[in-house]
């Protein structure tokens, strides 16, 4: 573990951006709970919320990516400057959830795939819906990639 100014400063101020890609909203509210609920306050772990991709380090994606959202997701991913990490939160984002994997006679054709088919993913958090404490530990687990990147 190198203790240079670069990795030290990257560990002390992490900016997180949320993208909702058409899920049921359960994971979205749980992640908003992480940031806005004093019980789970993410700022004490030096994780700040931002809504601007140019300012973000970590992108947290929830929801199975529907066809309409595929291009916006790619545009936002490309707008984030390096080094970046992507965290897929929830069962829908990690493997498509119920929408892609369960069907009666007709499968759904609206899902463009879980997140790793669209953009490269670094950490996956399971759960339906994710628990806020799991989201925080997931974001923190993606940090070593940022710290040791060029």
């Amino acid at each position: 573990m190198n203790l240079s100014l670069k990795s030290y400063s990257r560990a002390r101020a992490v900016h997180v951006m949320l993208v909702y890609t058409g899920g049921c909203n359960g994971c979205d509210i749980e992640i908003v709970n992480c940031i806005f609920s004093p019980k789970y306050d993410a700022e004490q772990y030096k994780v700040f919320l931002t809504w601007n991709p140019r300012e973000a380090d970590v992108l947290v994606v929830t929801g199975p990516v529907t066809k309409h959202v595929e291009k916006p997701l790619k545009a936002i991913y490309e707008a984030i400057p390096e080094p970046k990490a992507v965290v897929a939160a929830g069962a829908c984002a990690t493997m498509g959830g119920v929408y892609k994997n369960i069907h009666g006679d007709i499968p759904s054709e609206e899902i463009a795939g879980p997140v790793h088919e669209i953009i490269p993913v670094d950490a996956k958090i399971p759960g339906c819906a994710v628990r806020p404490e799991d989201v925080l530990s997931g974001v923190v687990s993606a940090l070593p990639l940022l710290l040791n990147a060029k």
Partner: protein
Amino acid sequence: METSMIITSLVAVIGTLIAAFVVSFWLPGIERKFIHARIQQRVGPPLSSPGFMAPIKFFFKQAVTPNSPMPKLYNALPLISLIVIVAILLLIMPQLYVLGALASIIAVIGLLKIEEIMYMFMGSLSKSVMSVGMPFPDLVKGAKHVDVTRSYVEELSTLRAFRLIAFGSFPIYIALFVPVVMAKSIFLGDIVAFQQLHGPVLFTVGGAIGAIAYFIGFMILLNEYPFAIMKTKADVIEGPLLEYMSKYRAYVYITRGFLIFVLASLFATMFLGIPPNLFSPGILVTIAVAIIFPIAMAIMSTFSPIFTFRQFYPVVAATSILGVIALVAAFL
């Protein structure tokens, strides 16, 4: 004798600048940890993270060309803004009062105006992906009004910055003229000397009312809640600053902390008569004011929503009237 005086002055100026930067790195952290977090009943980030570690982290990020018609000019604007604010701090230092007309209140107000105009330029040059650039099928059959010009959210911010320049800076300018009226001179050297003789302006009736107007104007200039309509999360996300990344965003962060310090030490110079000078005990008063101002501002901003123009106009009008009352009281 001459050279040693010049060298002492130079050391004092540079030392005060460095002290100003060092103090301003901690101010955003003090705001977030001790005020916002305490009031919102949560723990809050460590003191150094928002103001010190965040700009350093941004220095180490990759810089991509921003989406802008003139990217080089757009990227140069935060540094110009920082230089303008450093110039304000230099002008109020006593060692530079020899510069004559440049060390006057007119120059300070002119530099503050340049800082406000920067936002207009930034807003008109920023074309981020978050509004029109989002690849979404908008102009399809059945959509409403397909023939209207589409504007980015940053252009909204430019219009709002223009309105703020037009009337939002009245409170602070009127308040800045109260010590001028009392000292009967626009030169900073004379204003400081007047207060060494007669006591601080703050302890007179006109000065006290003027200080309140100054504080509200200070909040408007810093675009802090409730006056943050140019940068509100409700519609424009971040306004003119949307396309800044890596070291240019670090300049934006540093500029904000530094501006708080500079405006606080301007208050100390004009209303208390203590200019920022590293080699005199007055520097402690300057630093104390620089810590008290953001604390008071954070307390006010934690408890307020964002004002739209329906509330903004009356508040600015009321504060300007307060400022005029202070001016009249200063005359008498």
